[in-house]
């Protein structure tokens, strides 16, 4: 089923670039949630058959990343009444180009990786690396707290993609644990974001520089 899988992965990569390119926070949130949903679907394509364990894990993923997290984020965003990312530390176009470069690099680099024969054809590894890079780009170039959370989620997605390579290794409990952590993390972050907005009347992390030497 590799063709379909690869198609999905290409979509994921495209979504990365979109996330880099857009300035509207809602769009970013939606893109990331869509990415999450796609990731949730992939295990079916890899395993091929439906197991309850698989259902549980992927279902959890889809529910959390596609439903709960965007919901919480959008609520938080509405609470603090902000719409769009301000001009990031490096512009949208440059960051897009950077993301593209990263993707290309990932594609080339993963060629040289000593991969098991089964994993050479699918784009899993390059996609995961590229997504991780994009996540970092978002984290380091965006100023708004919410966008940084998005960056973290993208990073997490990238790692999740790599996890596809070794379905067996991660027992269900662990997968659920990871998801739970993710959920709690986002939950706490939303609270903090709220407080940041109350305390600094903005979400610009560039104002959070009181603590320094």
């Amino acid at each position, binding site marked *: 089923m590799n063709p379909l899988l690869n198609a999905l992965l290409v979509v994921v990569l495209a979504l990365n670039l979109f996330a880099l390119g857009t300035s509207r926070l809602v769009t970013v949130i939606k893109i990331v949630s869509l990415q999450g949903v796609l990731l949730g679907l992939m295990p079916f394509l890899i395993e091929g058959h439906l197991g309850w364990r698989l259902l549980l894990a992927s279902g959890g993923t889809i529910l959390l990343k596609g439903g709960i997290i965007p919901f919480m984020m959008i609520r938080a965003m509405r609470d603090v009444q902000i719409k769009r990312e301000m001009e990031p530390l490096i512009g949208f176009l440059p960051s897009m180009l950077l993301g593209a470069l990263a993707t290309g690099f990932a594609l080339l680099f993963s060629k040289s990786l000593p991969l098991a024969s089964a994993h050479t054809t699918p784009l899993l590894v390059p996609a995961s690396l590229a997504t991780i890079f994009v996540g*970092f780009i978002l*984290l*380091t170039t965006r100023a708004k707290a919410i966008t940084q959370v998005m960056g973290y989620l993208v990073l997490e997605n990238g790692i999740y993609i790599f996890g596809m390579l070794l379905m067996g290794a991660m027992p269900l409990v662990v997968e659920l644990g990871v998801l739970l952590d993710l959920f709690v993390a986002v939950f706490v972050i939303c609270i903090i974001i709220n407080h940041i907005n109350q305390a600094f009347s903005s979400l610009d*992390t560039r104002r959070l*520089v009181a603590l*320094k*030497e």
Partner: protein
Amino acid sequence: MQYEIHNGLVLIFAATIIMIASGLPACFFDRRFVWTQRLTTALMLIGSVLGWWGLVVASFGTPASSIVWDWHLPAGHFSIGLDALGAVFLIPVFTIPVLGSFYGLSYWRQSEHPENGRGLGLFYGLLAGGMALVVLSRDSVLFLIAWELMAMAAFFLAGAEDEKAEVRRAGWTYLVATHAGTICLLALFALLRQVSGGFALSTVVDGSLTTGIAATLFVLTIIGFGFKAGLMPLHVWLPGAHANAPSHVSAVMSGVMLKMGIYGILRVLTLLPVTELWNGEVVLGLGAITGILGIVFAIAQNDIKRLMAYSSIENIGIITMGIGLALIGRALHRADFVLLGLGGALLHVWNHSLFKSLIFLNSGAIMHAVHTRDMNRMGGLAKSMPVTAGLFLFGAVAICGLPPLNGFASEWLIYLGLFHSVGAGSSTVWPVGVAAVALAVIGALALACFVKIYCVVFLGTPRHPVHGQPHDPSRLMRYPMMLLAGGCVVLGILPQLGFPLLQNAVEQWMDPVAPAIPQLASAAPFQWISSMAMVFIVLVVGGFVLLRRKIVRQAPALVGTWGCGYGLATPRIQYTATSFGEMLVSLFRWVLFPRFRRPAISSVFPAKSEFSTEVPDPVLERVILPAFRQAGRNMMKLRLLQQGRIQIYLLYVLAVLVFLLGWGKLGF
């Protein structure tokens, strides 16, 4: 478990414990109970008496007595031991602190210093006991523990009056210096363990190690212990700490604690195969420089206690010269050099601890009387406090190394050694000869220095009105000084008393392969010195009595000092400490960097103004502090790393990741 207990060691160990704990009971009582101080002193006394008893009954045969207990440390053992070398250094430890603590009963009354009295007692005991433990310990880790106990206690003692900025600064300087020394010692002992295979301070390293390692060990030893002893570039902490500590503490620090650095050097040198000529020459040169510069700085001081502190540096220099000569002897297998050099050094250890403690206690009495340390404001105290003046004279004459007091005895031994090695045509004639001359210069400068301090403080007329009538201190402060002065006289006339122990120590220090060591008494005909000294004393006393009688009989006309025709002579026109030292200071301007504060003559009739000079420690003020400030400034620049931007922080993570992946050369 190995037990070779000789009663001596057990007694001394008990004494050490008692000293360490001496200050403890007082801490459980309220600061208002003044009698607790007497309790502390009593415990110190018991400890010292036990210690002396132990020293008397101990036998210094081989194997040296030792106690080894298993100890749950990775280091392994709690092992202490006693040998002649240790005994030499234990004698001051069991003598000076107890005298100082009696002195303290009156000098630092609990009733007058309620808030730091008990703490002072506690750390005083810790210092004394710690020093004893340093000498006893035969295990690196135990040694380090004792060493740090001593160093920290000294820090808290010197910082007793920490509400004064000067005291804080001095204490901080001391703390940094001593810690730097300890760091070197850590390296030293770690390296020593690697080459000797254990922490025991008794296994001699065989000569089979590379010259590089041997040199490193030697240098680490000199630096690590040099910080404590106050060798010249490393002395920076010494003047401040001694000047600002309470006087009886300064007495112990200068009289005993500095010697622990010397002890450390000697002890480690017994373990190391230090047999190269340059080692000895380096130590000799270091000693000469320390001695000369130390006394030159001393002459330039106006603060009485700073002056004494610098003179301690000078004496350490003399001791170091002796050690250097001994090392040369070791390298050349000349037992007589070792005997005279080390014998003189060890004897000087005793002598210095006697007269330096004496004059430090004395300075305390002076400060009680005039409430200042600035000699330019003193003068004429011999009239109001004759006993103090007399006792100080003993210390001053002794410390100049003048016969018939003890300072001469030890310097004489070192001179003998130096001249021997010149006359014997050994291969290091000229450095040794220059060292001998350096010692002579030290002697002359010391004379100038102590003429200055004695005369400016006690003779002439008061240069400054002192509120209250200065008077001799109470008995509690006088008797310890008298005992010390007596010690100076006895060791000056009959140094032979100490010879058996010294001989023992030297023989133990000399490496076994060396030729047989001659007897100290035969190498140095001290009976002559003794008889000459007695004749001298008899003649002087007799002559003085006769002259005195003649003068008294004719009832001399008591007039004012002849002002050479100048009628309005006031005390202000006397020579001051500054002016007395001026010529020498200007001779050594190139190393002293004196600071002058000159009044600017503005108008035709200039207003009253003051001229003053001060000589801060050049090494500290011109080298170390600037270097530290510069380093601090540069570090402040690096602070930009932590500038608060979370995005940058995340970049750090990525950067390290990439860097390590690249560095790891993962073979992708």
